[in-house]
């Protein structure tokens, strides 16, 4: 399926590496439609079984029907309850398709990645993320053992290390985490609960002291939120509002399970981008540099406009790299974005660079209207994405995919711009 999409893009853009934004957008739409169309065709060919195939350890409420649950979770996913009937049906269809892949004793990772690339239905997102992150193996028979082992391991770390947060050698790390947690999402009541903040503190502290090469760096705290929210959603009732959910309502060990699972998934994620957070942050510096090279290549007028007004790419895109765009787009969009990052090889590192490039050129017209340094900087640090939905992220991803295809495996294509 991807091959077809690839061929299509390649055909369109082989001859002209300097693509006008409008053309790019149309292409992005077409890629999306093609991709979606293919998925739907395949959906017609198979009917998934209507039984949840999750492990007994992780499925908290087997009684609720899939349909009710999916609908409820869709409301959560959109967070403001904006979802139309057509979209609900499509999500149900996709849900069944995921169930078909997830039901086997051995899950086909390749198929799961391919399907996940275009977004994961909220109902199967927790389990799919755990598999794609590398936390759970494709062999389902081993899940119960892995869950038990990993959760025990995490809590033994906590027992072993957490008290040392007050010792002098770790005091700086702990203090930084402790002052950052309340400042993460101050307006969402969920994150202001002591139980939740304690959870985040333990996850981040344990991760930091087990990864001394980077330690805790501001921004890593952001990366826990999508994971935590996705794993928590699995335990919510259909009418629960996640923003205001009181975690004391959870079963005693549910929060402990969420915490341990979040820790391991965060660890896997950070393994892929650790050089973003080591001394002098070389991963970020390189990506900022590559972003600049890429924009110079694909949107000369925008690049020259930024240069002319002395905008330094580091000044605006550092945060894009350091916080994986989480400070630029709403949380629900980050979650959708991560479906693809998890599905894509090296998604949080390499592919993120192309997403950033697509994100920058998305604002091309608005940026070109700004006539001075301050205006540009103010726009760049407050890009109006509040109303963004999964559809906007889908467009962004399609464009990023096109850019990656054109440049990632053709370094000379990129260096030719200098």
């Amino acid at each position, binding site marked *: 399926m991807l091959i077809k999409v690839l061929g299509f893009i390649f055909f369109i853009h082989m001859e002209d590496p300097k693509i006008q934004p409008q053309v790019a957008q149309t292409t992005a739409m077409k890629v999306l439609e093609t991709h979606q169309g293919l998925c739907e065709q395949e959906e017609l060919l198979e009917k998934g079984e209507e039984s949840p195939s999750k492990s007994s350890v992780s499925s908290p409420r087997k009684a609720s029907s899939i349909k009710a649950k999916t609908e409820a979770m869709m409301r959560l996913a959109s967070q403001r309850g904006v979802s139309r009937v057509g979209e609900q049906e499509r999500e149900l269809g996709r849900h069944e398709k995921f169930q078909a892949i997830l039901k086997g004793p051995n899950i086909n990772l390749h198929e799961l990645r391919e399907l996940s690339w275009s977004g994961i239905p909220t109902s199967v997102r927790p389990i799919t993320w755990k598999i794609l992150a590398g936390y759970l193996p494709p062999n389902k028979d081993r899940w119960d053992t892995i869950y038990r082992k990993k959760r025990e391991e995490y809590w033994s770390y906590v027992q072993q290390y957490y008290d040392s947060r007050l010792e002098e050698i770790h005091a700086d790390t702990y203090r930084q985490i402790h002052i950052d947690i309340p400042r993460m999402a101050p307006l969402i009541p969920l994150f202001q609960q002591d139980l939740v903040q304690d959870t985040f503190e333990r996850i981040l502290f344990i991760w930091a002291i087990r990864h001394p090469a980077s330690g805790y760096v501001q921004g890593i705290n952001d990366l826990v939120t999508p994971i935590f929210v996705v794993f928590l959603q699995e335990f919510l009732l259909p009418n629960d509002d996640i923003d205001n959910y009181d975690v004391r309502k959870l079963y005693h060990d549910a929060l402990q399970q969420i915490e341990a699972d979040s820790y391991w998934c965060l660890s896997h994620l950070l393994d892929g981008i650790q050089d973003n957070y080591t001394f002098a942050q*070389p991963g970020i510096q*390189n990506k900022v540099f590559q972003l*600049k090279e890429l924009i110079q290549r694909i949107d000369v007028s925008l690049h020259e406009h930024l240069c002319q007004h002395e905008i330094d790419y580091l000044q605006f895109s*550092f945060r894009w790299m350091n916080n994986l765009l989480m400070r630029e787009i709403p949380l629900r969009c980050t979650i959708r974005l991560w479906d693809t990052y998890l599905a894509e090889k090296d998604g949080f590192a390499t592919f993120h660079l192309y997403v950033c490039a697509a994100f920058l050129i998305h604002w091309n017209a608005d940026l070109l209207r700004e006539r001075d340094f301050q205006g540009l900087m103010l726009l760049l640090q407050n890009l109006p994405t509040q109303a963004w939905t999964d559809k906007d992220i889908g467009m962004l991803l399609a464009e990023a995919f096109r850019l990656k295809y054109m440049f990632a495996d053709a370094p000379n294509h990129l260096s030719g711009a200098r």
Partner: protein
Amino acid sequence: MAAQQNNEEIRDSLGEKAELDYDEKTKAGELAVKVICLGDSAVGKSKLLERFLVDGYKPQQLSTYALTLYRHRMTISDESVLVDFWDTAGQERFQSMHASYYHQGHACILVFDATRKITYKNLTTWYKELRHHRPSIPCFCAVNKIDVNEEVTQRSFNFPAKYDIPIYYVSAANGTNVVKLFTDAVEAAIRYKKNPSDFNDIILEELERT
């Protein structure tokens, strides 16, 4: 190795590209100055700015990542001035951003937290780095959160005395001295811009240009 080379290239390009036109008047003929706020994480840099700019104070605050730019138009001695306040990230790990914070700054406000001693100790590090990049721009020291620790206003501090830096006892929470701090800093920034007093600084700027 390749990664290191790239880093060098980035720094070089930063040196060139980050050169802003703060040394010229804006197109409308206004003065434009750049004021930098520095200090450890969570000492209240963003809150002080917020208090000054919108005279509002929200008890909750987001962390600042990398930098945040605020633009503010003021009238100082009947002259309209465009002030860019650069709010910076305090965590040590972000040092790769620092060069661009300092670049062409006209004044600096060093902030520490009256309730956390370590943030005072670290001022020396911030100050040395500042002077490395900007040997003679006017510098101000602000002790924040005096609403929480009132006794601190009775104390004198060695660091500002040693370097001859004026000290301001401020509170972003209740607004004490915030306007005075920023107004004094902006006035000093303008004086510096009109007449950069330190000869070395002029030479350094010339060297940077060539």
